[in-house]
């Protein structure tokens, strides 16, 4: 078990890094989860004109400036994907694969790079739709299970499921060679909608329909409502107030995931507010 961090920051774009810098300056024990290139969005930006004090930088150069800044402050970005954040009451459990981190507060700065749910996905959640195939597979012994797979883990899960389910379909959303058990039927088509009455009955694809009892959607980047069970959303963004507080005590959000404008400086400003609020929260609870 790791020590409990003061602030776990999820995301390494301008919001996450600004939060990290401010948390570090206030001498808090922080951990930052993100990616090697810090932000896909920035790296891809041809030119940024409106970042105060750093005019006309290529996205790549702005990223390098961010990197220099965090390096100088001894902030490390961990290249780990967070699957879930659990609000345990007086702390948060942050899952990176099978590794568990604990933090007293969390700042969510995960951007807007996530796929929208399929029609019917939210409606049938817990009634045939699931995100943890290995959890629920034993409940579908001898029945039909469909996995919509975006990553390698989905392939492994499909193999595991096929040992229990009566019939397993795998709808690949990744362009790779698939090492699936012979029992798994690969269906190359585009998922459109999940349908049923009380429980899931079928998955509608572009050119066919699959009669199925379960649909597991295994994505890389999940919407905040799935990342943090219980978080409140508003018009596709995380609901926050002026203090960047979400509906969950100790959990803050900053950057694009809280709403428009999707601008770097707005994100950095929100990251700062979130960090300072988290610091106040930490001082109040400790």
């Amino acid at each position, binding site marked *: 078990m790791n020590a409990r961090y003061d602030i776990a920051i999820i995301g390494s774009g301008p919001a996450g890094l600004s939060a990290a810098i401010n948390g570090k300056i206030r001498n808090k024990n922080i951990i930052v989860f993100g990616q090697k290139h810090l932000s896909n969005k920035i790296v891809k930006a041809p030119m940024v004109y409106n970042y105060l004090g750093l005019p006309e930088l290529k996205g790549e150069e702005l990223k390098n400036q961010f990197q220099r800044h965090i390096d100088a402050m001894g902030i490390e970005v961990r290249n780990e994907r967070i699957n*879930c954040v*659990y*609000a*345990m*009451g007086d702390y948060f*459990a942050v*899952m990176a694969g*099978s590794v568990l981190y604990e933090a007293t507060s969390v700042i969510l700065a995960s951007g807007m790079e996530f796929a929208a749910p399929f029609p019917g996905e939210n409606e049938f*959640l*817990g*009634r*045939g739709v*699931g995100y*943890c195939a*290995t*959890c*629920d597979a*034993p*409940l*579908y012994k001898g029945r039909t299970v469909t996995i919509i797979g975006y990553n390698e883990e989905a392939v492994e899960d499909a193999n595991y499921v096929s040992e229990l389910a009566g019939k397993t379909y795998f709808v690949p959303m990744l362009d790779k060679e698939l090492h699936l058990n012979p029992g798994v039927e690969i269906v190359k088509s585009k998922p459109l909608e999940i349908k049923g009455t009380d*429980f899931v009955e079928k998955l509608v694809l572009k050119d066919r329909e699959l009669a199925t*009892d*379960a649909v597991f959607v295994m994505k890389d980047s999940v919407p905040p409502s799935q990342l943090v*069970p*219980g978080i409140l959303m508003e018009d596709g963004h995380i609901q926050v107030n002026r203090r960047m507080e979400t509906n*969950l*005590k100790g959990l803050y959000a900053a950057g694009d995931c809280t709403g428009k404008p999707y601008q770097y400086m707005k994100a950095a400003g929100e990251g700062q507010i979130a960090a300072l609020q988290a610091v106040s929260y930490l001082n109040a609870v400790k």
Partner: protein
Amino acid sequence: MKEVTDALFQKEVLESEVPVMVDFWAPWCGPCRMVSPVMEELDQLYNGKIKFVKLNVDDNPTTSMQYGIVSIPTLLLFKDGKAAQKLVGFRPKGEFESLLNQYI
């Protein structure tokens, strides 16, 4: 927290005089492992006003099927022998409390 089985379900849950929160779980399920400590805390908090038990879905398929459990963790709150509330998946502790407060 007490572990119940298909055989004990009638007596421990359906015939209970206080409301019972049943945690349908299995050992291999990650989110279930996160729900457990929250339930333990709530068990202490409600101190007998609400009973908390867990049921391993793999060992007890009859009860799991009967209540249409297709995703775990699922939490069912029983009052007077009937399932009154159903929550699927992990929820923040506060959300469990708001729900349970309606039953004490």
